[in-house]
C-alpha cells in the first residue's frame, strides 16, 4: 500500500483543499500505530506497555475501518484490543505489590531482540514494497458488506463466489471444516484451562474423619459428613483418583 499512498499524498498539489483525506487518515492511524508500537518496546512499566499496545492495536483497527473492512476492524477491537485487557490485568497484578516495577532487559537481550526485529521489519518491508500492482481505487473507497459473506461462508455457503450457472446445491463448501477444527480446538483449550485451574482437593476431610471417629461432637461430625460427601463426589468426578 505504501507506494501508492505515498505518491497519492505527496503528489497532491498544496492548497489544502486537494489533499487526499483518505491518505491523510491513513498516515494518521499508521503513525499512531507505529509510534505506540515503538513506545511499547521503549517503555519499562508493564502496565504502560499494555496501554500503549492497546492504542497501537486500536489504531490498526482504525486502519481496517478506513479500508472499509468493518468486520475485520470490529474483530480487531474485540479480539486484540479486548484481549490486551487480560494482559493489562496480569500486568497490574504483577506490579501491584511494588508500584512502578520497571522491566529493563540487559544489553545482550536488547541486541538480540533488535536484530530479530530489524530482520523481520526488513522482510516485511521487502514483501510490501515488491508488490508493484497496488491499484488506486477508481472513486473513493466503497465499503463491501463484509459480514454476511463471511458468516455464510462459515456455515458453508459461499455467497461471495458463486459458481457460474451452478445449481444451488453445488456451491463451494466454504469454511466449515476450518471453522469446526478451530471450534474443537478452542473447546479443548477451554476444558484444559478449567482442568488446570480447578480447585485442588484438600487433605483435611480425612483428618476430620479420624477426629470424628474418636470423639464426635455434633458440629464436627456434620463437617466430616459433608467432607466425606465432597471428597467422594470429587473423586468420582476426577476419575477415581
Amino acid at each position, binding site marked *: 500500500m505504501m507506494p501508492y499512498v505515498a505518491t497519492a499524498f505527496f503528489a497532491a498539489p498544496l492548497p489544502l483543499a486537494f489533499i487526499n483525506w483518505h491518505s491523510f*487518515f491513513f498516515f494518521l492511524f499508521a503513525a499512531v500505530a507505529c509510534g505506540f508500537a515503538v513506545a511499547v518496546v521503549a517503555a519499562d512499566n508493564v502496565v504502560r506497555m499494555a496501554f500503549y499496545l492497546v492504542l497501537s492495536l486500536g489504531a490498526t483497527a482504525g486502519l481496517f475501518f478506513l479500508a472499509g473492512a*468493518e*468486520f475485520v476492524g*470490529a474483530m480487531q477491537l474485540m479480539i486484540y484490543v479486548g484481549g490486551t485487557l487480560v494482559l493489562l490485568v496480569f500486568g497490574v497484578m504483577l506490579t501491584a505489590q511494588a508500584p512502578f516495577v520497571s522491566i529493563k532487559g540487559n544489553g545482550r537481550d536488547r541486541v538480540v531482540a533488535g536484530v530479530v526485529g530489524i530482520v523481520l521489519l526488513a522482510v516485511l518491508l521487502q514483501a510490501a514494497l515488491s508488490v508493484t500492482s497496488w491499484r488506486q481505487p477508481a472513486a*473513493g473507497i466503497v465499503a463491501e458488506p463484509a459480514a454476511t*459473506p463471511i458468516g455464510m461462508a462459515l456455515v458453508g455457503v459461499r455467497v461471495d463466489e458463486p459458481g457460474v450457472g451452478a445449481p444451488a446445491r453445488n456451491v463451494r463448501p466454504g469454511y466449515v471444516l476450518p471453522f469446526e477444527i478451530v471450534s474443537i480446538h478452542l473447546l479443548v483449550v477451554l476444558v484444559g484451562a478449567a482442568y488446570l485451574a480447578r480447585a485442588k482437593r484438600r487433605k483435611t476431610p480425612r483428618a476430620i474423619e479420624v477426629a470424628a471417629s474418636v470423639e464426635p461432637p455434633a458440629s464436627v461430625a456434620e463437617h466430616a459428613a459433608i467432607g466425606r460427601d465432597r471428597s467422594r463426589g470429587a473423586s468420582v468426578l476426577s476419575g477415581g483418583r
Partner: protein
Amino acid sequence: MADFLINTLGLPAWLAWSITAMVAAVLILNVIAGGALAFIWAERKIAGRIQDRLGPTRTGGKFGWLQSLADGIKLLAKEDLMPDGADGMLFRIAPYVSFCASFCAFIAFPFAFDFIGQRLNVGVFFVIAVLGLEVFGVILAGYASASKWSLFGAMREAAQVVSYEVPLGMCVVVPVMLAGSMDLVTIAEKQGGWFTSWFLFHDPFTFVVFWIYVTCAIASVNRAPFDLAEAESELVAGFHTEYSGLRWSYFFMAEYGSMFLVSALAAILFMGGWNGPVPVASILGLSEGTSDTANYFVRLLGMVNLLGKATLGVLAMMWIRWTLPRLRIDQVMATCLKYCTPLAAAMFLGAMLWQIALPGGLVPGLRRPAAEIREGWLPGPGGAARSVGEDAGAVVKVGA
C-alpha cells in the same frame, strides 16, 4: 448533509466533510453530556422518592432541576488532586479512556433510520466491542491511583466485565439471528409495525433472553446491584477513590453514557428500535419516502420513540439500583457463570429451534415473520449479487 454543503453552499469537499463530522460528533457529545445531566438529576429524585425523601428541591426552582448544573460548576471549581505515588500519565488519561469508549460506541448507533453517525454493517458487533473497552479506563485508574481500594475495585471490575461479556454476547446474537443481520438499522427495521412484531414478543425464548440481556447489561455498565468496583461500604469509592473534580465527572459521564447506550441497544435489539408500539406515522398517512418533510417527521418521531425507550430503560436501572442490595463478588460470578450463561445458551438454542419449527409465528398473520428472507440465502449468482448490493447501505465516502 455534506452533499448539501458541497452542492448548495459551494464549500470545498474537505471542509464540507469536516463540518459534517464535527456536527455528528458534537451531537453525540451532547447526547452523552446532556443525558448525564438529566439522568443525574433523575437519579437523585428517584433515589429520594424510593428512600422516602424528597431529593433535591431548591436549586433552580421547585424540583431542584438545576441541581446537576450546580454540581457541574462545583466539580469544575474543585482542585484536581493526584496522589503522591500515582503514575501521573495513566492517572490523568484514565477518565478520558473510559469516556472515549462510551463516546465511540455512539458513533455507529442509529437514533432513527438515517440519524446515525456512521452506518456500519456490523453495528451491533462494533458497539459491543467498543463498549467493552470502557473497562480499560477503570483498570488504569485503579492501578495508577496507587491505592489499595482503587486496585481492588479495578480488579473486581475486570473480572466482572470479562465474565459478563459472554452471556451478553449470547443474548445479542439472538436478535441478530432473527434479523439475519448485524446492522443495527436493519435489525430495527425488521421490527416495524405494531409492537407485536418486536423481537421481545417474537417467541417465549426471546422474551427470556431480553431479561438476561437486562441483567448482563446492568452488570456490564457496572451499576448496582453489580457495582462492586465502587462498593462504597467496602472500598470507599473503588476505582475512583482518588479522583476529584472534572476527571471524576468524566467517569460519571462515561457511566451514564454507557447506561443510556445499553438501554438504547436493548430498545433496538428487542423493542423495535425507533418503531413505536403503535405505528403512528403510518396511521397518519406519513410514510418513509413520500416527501422530504414526511421523511424528516417520521425520523424525528422515531428518534423520540427510541430516546423514550432508552430513557425508560435508564429509569428502570435506577429503580433496580435503589431497590436491590449489592451482591457479593462470588454471587456476581455465580449469577453470570451458573445462571446467565447456561440460560442464554439454552434460550439461543430454543429461539433457533422455534425459528425452524414455527417460522411464521404462533398465530399466522398477526405478525410478519421476521426472518423469512435473509441476505445472501440464495446462492445463485443473481441472488447473491442482488442481496449484497441491497445490504451495502454503508458507503464510506472518504476522500475528496
